[in-house]
């Protein structure tokens, strides 16, 4: 038959060896990038454990330390007000996220479940707002907050950071998947909308709510631009501004190990949050998050 042409060699060892080589190269590449990603983390932890004197005595950087010290961490909390920055950020992140969840849930519920005139128009308007870049509106917001005398205050920090059209959209899509019958059944039983939202919708859609909560917390923890514009009193600095302040004026001298200690302290909460909710975060981000 026509197949006589197709060459058939028995179990080719060469192919197997080639496959093995490809796999080895793949792992090598992946490990290399893993090192590139992890190395800065290693370096910051390492440096934070070196004493100031030891670090500055190293003309050639050393990849390990034999006399780790926690003195830098102590320094980070005493010499600069890292504790204050952490507390500020925690307050800011929790309040903003809580307000965001409440506001977004209400709006998403209205779009997903309630019937009212002009719904499609308003929703279209909401969607188009996703395209407005922050850079454009930040200028006026800065003027608005300044005129309201809210600079260096939590309301000034929080109010413009609450709404996120994207999260409203995400929640609305999720709410719409809850079958209509549940709503009708609840209505027949005389359940109010608010109670239905609280007792039925929120429990069913909890996974999505958790996801947006975590994503918003991360966003708040890393916020830099708005806090920088709106706070100039260190008492209201968030961690991002705090680290910038420490870098430029902190510790009196170029105390790199102490700086690294603050960086470690700032990074740990988020890394713990990430490791705890790894699946949720990665799933949420791949569904449409972007950085910045």
């Amino acid at each position: 038959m026509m197949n006589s042409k197709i060459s058939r060699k028995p179990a080719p060892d060469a192919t197997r060896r080639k496959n093995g080589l490809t796999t080895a190269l793949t792992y090598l590449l992946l490990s290399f990038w893993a090192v590139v990603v992890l190395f800065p983390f290693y370096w910051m932890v390492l440096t934070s454990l070196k004493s100031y004197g030891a670090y500055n005595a190293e003309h050639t950087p050393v990849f390990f330390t034999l006399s780790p010290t926690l003195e830098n961490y102590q320094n980070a909390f005493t010499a600069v007000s890292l504790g204050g920055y952490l507390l500020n950020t925690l307050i800011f992140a929790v309040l903003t996220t809580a307000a965001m969840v409440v506001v977004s849930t209400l709006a998403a519920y209205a779009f997903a479940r309630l019937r009212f005139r002009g719904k499609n128009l308003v929703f279209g308007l909401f969607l188009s707002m996703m395209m407005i870049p922050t850079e454009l509106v930040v200028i006026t917001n800065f003027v608005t907050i300044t005129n309201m005398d809210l600079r260096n205050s939590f309301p000034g920090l929080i109010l413009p950071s609450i709404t996120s059209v994207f999260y409203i959209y995400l929640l609305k899509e999720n709410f719409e998947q809850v079958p209509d019958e549940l709503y009708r059944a609840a209505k027949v039983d005389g359940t109010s909308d608010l109670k239905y939202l609280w007792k039925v919708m929120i429990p069913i859609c909890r996974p999505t709510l958790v996801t947006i909560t975590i994503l918003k917390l991360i966003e708040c923890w890393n916020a830099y631009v708005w806090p920088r514009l709106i706070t100039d009193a260190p008492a209201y600095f968030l961690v991002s501004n705090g680290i910038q302040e420490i870098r430029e004026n902190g510790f009196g001298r170029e105390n790199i190990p102490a700086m690294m200690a603050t960086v470690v302290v700032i990074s740990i909460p988020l890394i713990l949050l990430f490791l705890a909710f790894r699946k949720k975060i990665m799933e949420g981000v791949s569904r449409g998050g972007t950085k910045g």
Partner: protein
Amino acid sequence: MDRNSRKAWLYLLPSLILLGAFLIYPLIDVLIYSVEECYNFASQTYQGIGLYNYAYVLHDPYFLQALQNTFVLVIITVPTSTVLALVISTALSSIRPLRQLFQTIYFLPYVTNTLAVGLVFMVLFQRTEYTDGLVNLMLEWFGAGPIDFINGPHWAKMFVLCFYTVWVVLPFKILVLTSALASVNEDYYKAARVDGTSRARIFFRITLPMIAPMLVYLVITGFIGAFKAYSDAVALFGTDLNAAGMNTIVGYVYDMLYGDSGGYPSYASAAAILLFVIVLTITCVNLLVTRRRVRA
């Protein structure tokens, strides 16, 4: 208005107020600012209406420097990060053991504070009187001379900025591409294997076209994101970016608004609108090109 409608508007009220005050009003306002000439922030008065603010910004050497820096950053980081992400996620999809571990590691930069980790990069690349820094130590192994990446020549600073930007944006891209690759039906690969398709051909003729929509999405969001670069630069070079010659367009906007050289919301508005126009144009061009390419 009936009872139901009233209730719905009540539910929408908080978000409408917030969006109106902090998103819609500012959008209109920024256009007004940008045409009000000689606006005085203290007395909140202006002298006329016109395009002077735009002309000023376009002639400002700091803006031109920022524009140039931003374009260089975009042109280098967008293709580099996309290709790198494609290579890494393809490699990631071809293995099974340790895949989860690698995925978790690669995602780490996404959940770190840009400012904080930027400081680590600064330390790694910096050259001070005491030490040449770690990166220079490695360069020395290859016989290259010490370079100060943080306070030295412009190209070296640009390199660090690009490197850090790629490091920061890769997690998102790898994640998106890995899930795009995973969503390609296994049967296509089986069919290709039955036909004896080579690895390279499978990648270029099957995999790539299948994930093309996701690649387009990544390139477009990549462009938009890179044009808005700012905090990465601050993390590496400090808040006075003009002095370092490393300012970006967004940085210019904020500097005009606030800080040592601030107090000019009109110039800031004009620059912000210019940025918006640039991003919008590039996005449209991107969409047109890719649509034609993906269809053909």
